[in-house]
């Protein structure tokens, strides 16, 4: 009896994964535990292992397919069992009905197929709970019920608003409703129209487009999360110009004591340590807003933004407050390496309580970062430059300085507290002995 290979669920909120590539081909022998297919979710690539030893067969989805979790994607059969014909013939499915059109890959009961067709549901996306993973009518119904509304008609809007939106050519889905229960009233449509008029988008003619990049995968994830963060968290920002003389000096002295194979302590590592120290003193910044509650978190897990070609990824340095500079340096180096190789695990990316984003290497003096949800704050680090500053006697001297910009969620943190926190970060950077005490 062929054993199904299912698309595993890799995270709490994950409901589908994309097949990156098959590592084994249909008909190939595999051992239990062999990685047979590579999948990706959000930005993490995972390998799915063979659940048993045998012949990989009955592959249902090719590279690029997005498959719901727990869906059967292939089978492992015994060598003496008859080959399975793709896409879906298993010995338990004697009455498989192949619906017409794009859904011919899926196995479904005739009633389920008909219902899916009526509702315009792609059977490929439906999880089957029937025998052998067959899609039943209730599976289709359940899928239909959970499918998020995507058409205009599912927007809650009064008739007057709909008419106005029609007349003005405004997509109701983009209008914020002020009526009861968030219903869109016609006044809301007029507001949206006025706002649109201000933005006055220029029309793009096709000949003006150099390249079209679909908003998918990592890009889409970043876009969605950043938009959510920007919309939901009221950001307050604070700048601090930091004299990094002491920090640079500490670095060079530590690096001088390291073995050649040990990774150097970067300025970023020192900044991480300084932030970890400050976070301990300001628990409100090391927090998370959950519903109607602010959770002050025990661990100080600092994410360090790493720039990849596809986008920014933020591996997390766990318990940064308890690690020494060299350990932090090692962690940062390893995380960055894994990130570049696309080998980051789920665990690497979750659990952060604060983020440090250092884009100084790109030559910017200062910038404002968007908070990484569900964290409460993020610090943006600009490049180190030599600046003229007054000394104790008021005489101009040259010092290496950088600008740190803190963005904090005003729902959780007030200005004073945020300012105090940033002030502590500066103090720690300018007096690193602080985090040795």
């Amino acid at each position, binding site marked *: 009896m062929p054993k199904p290979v299912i698309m595993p669920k890799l995270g709490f909120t994950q409901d589908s994964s994309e097949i990156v590539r098959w590592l084994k081909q249909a008909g190939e022998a595999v051992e239990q535990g062999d990685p047979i297919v590579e999948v990706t979710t959000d930005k993490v690539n995972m390998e799915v292992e063979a659940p048993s030893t045998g012949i990989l067969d009955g592959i249902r989805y090719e590279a690029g397919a997005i498959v719901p979790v727990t869906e059967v994607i292939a089978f492992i059969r015994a060598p003496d069992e008859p080959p399975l014909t793709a896409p879906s013939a298993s010995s338990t499915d004697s009455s498989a009905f192949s619906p017409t059109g794009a859904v011919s890959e899926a196995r479904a009961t005739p009633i389920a197929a008909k219902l899916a067709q009526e509702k315009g549901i792609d059977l490929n996306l439906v999880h089957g709970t029937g025998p052998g993973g067959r899609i039943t009518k209730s599976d289709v119904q359940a899928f239909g019920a959970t499918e998020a509304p995507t058409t205009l008609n599912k927007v809650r809007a*009064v*008739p007057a608003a709909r008419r106005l939106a029609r007349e003005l050519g405004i997509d109701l889905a983009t209008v914020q409703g002020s009526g009861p229960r968030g219903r869109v009233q016609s006044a809301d449509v007029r507001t949206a129209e006025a706002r649109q008029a201000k933005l006055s988008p220029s029309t793009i003619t096709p000949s003006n487009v150099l390249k079209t990049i679909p908003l998918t995968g990592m890009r889409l994830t970043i876009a969605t999360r950043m938009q959510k963060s920007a919309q939901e968290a009221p950001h307050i920002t604070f700048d601090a110009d930091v004299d990094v003389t002491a920090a640079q000096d500490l670095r060079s002295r530590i690096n001088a004591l390291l073995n050649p194979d040990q990774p150097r302590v970067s300025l970023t590592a020192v900044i991480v340590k300084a932030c970890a120290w400050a976070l301990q003193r300001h628990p409100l910044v090391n927090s998370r807003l959950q519903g109607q509650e602010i959770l002050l978190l025990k661990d100080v897990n600092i994410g360090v933004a790493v720039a990849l070609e596809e986008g920014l990824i933020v591996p997390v340095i766990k318990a940064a407050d308890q690690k020494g500079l060299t350990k932090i340096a090692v962690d940062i180096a390893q995380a960055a390496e894994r990130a570049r190789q696309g080998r980051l695990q789920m665990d690497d990316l979750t659990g952060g309580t604060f983020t440090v984003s250092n884009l100084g290497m790109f030559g910017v003096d200062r910038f404002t970062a968007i908070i990484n949800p569900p964290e409460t704050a993020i610090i943006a680090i600009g490049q180190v430059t030599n600046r003229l500053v007054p000394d104790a006697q008021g005489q101009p001297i040259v010092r290496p300085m950088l600008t740190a910009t803190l963005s904090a969620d005003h729902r959780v943190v007030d200005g004073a507290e945020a300012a105090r926190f940033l002030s502590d970060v500066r103090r720690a950077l300018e007096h690193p002995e602080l985090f040795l005490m």
Partner: protein
Amino acid sequence: MREITYVEAVREALNQAMTADERVFLIGEDIGIYGGAFGATAGLIERFGEQRVIDTPISEAGIAGACIGAALTGMRPVGEIQFMDFVTLSMEQLVLQAAKIRFMFGGKASVPMVLRMPGGSGTGAAAQHSESLENWFVHVPGLKVVMPSTPYDAKGLLLASIQDNNPVIFIEHKLLYKTKGPVPEEMYTVPLEQSAVVREGRELTIIATSVMVNRSLEAAKQLSEQGIEAEVIDPRTLKPLDAEPIISSVKKTGRALVVHEAPKTGGFGGEIVSVIVESQAFDYLEAPVRRLGGLDIPIPYNRNLEYHTVPQPETIAAEAIKLVRGEY
């Protein structure tokens, strides 16, 4: 212009109609010397004699039948049913004969009669003397249903109803009989099938019938103090309904509230809401169309219970505020 009461207006209409057209006669219980239970026919028997102001035994089916037979054979009777509640005893004659004769006979006959009756609650007359059954008649093809709310409309609509060649159910309201208003002395008609915008407004449209028109105007005063200007429309003729002013108004205001005394469930309000929602006004709605009607109970005897059984100015105002402030 001189002001007279609603009941005086009714009496004047009857008087003038009978003077102008000898085919018009009155028939009903206690309408002669007694002058009618609510005084609508007081003095008329003295003027026109008992041949034209006919007292009947307590025989509502007979009264209705008499109107039908007379109307079929060249007369223009105006019957009176003492309380709308008692019209239930005439239902067969009204629904199966009066309403249908013309149609059943291929349009070759007509029944030009009027049946007047006072309906409504508020006098402590309790369950069997306080009915509002207008919707029953609206539901019968072949009848016309009229509900005047002012003395001016009462006289004009009654004269128009008497001139109409169809069976007209003319529903007065007991509480309106003593209300006063300007009424021209000469004969004039208010057309059937014509709604009246009795108050102009902006924020919402209230469509009300009979005594609820008065209460809605009361409510409108209260609303005005809160910056809400209600437009009030009185259909006056429920069947056939002049829907156009209602539709235009709702297009303007985007919010509609229907108010009637009869129990909400199955009441005429449902018809108005449907007319609005099925019309072009739908695309201009900012909120669901709402109804206020009587509770689904017989009219209680206790005064306070009776008061709270049907819409009152304060409940109308409260509902209007909720509608305008976006609670629906």
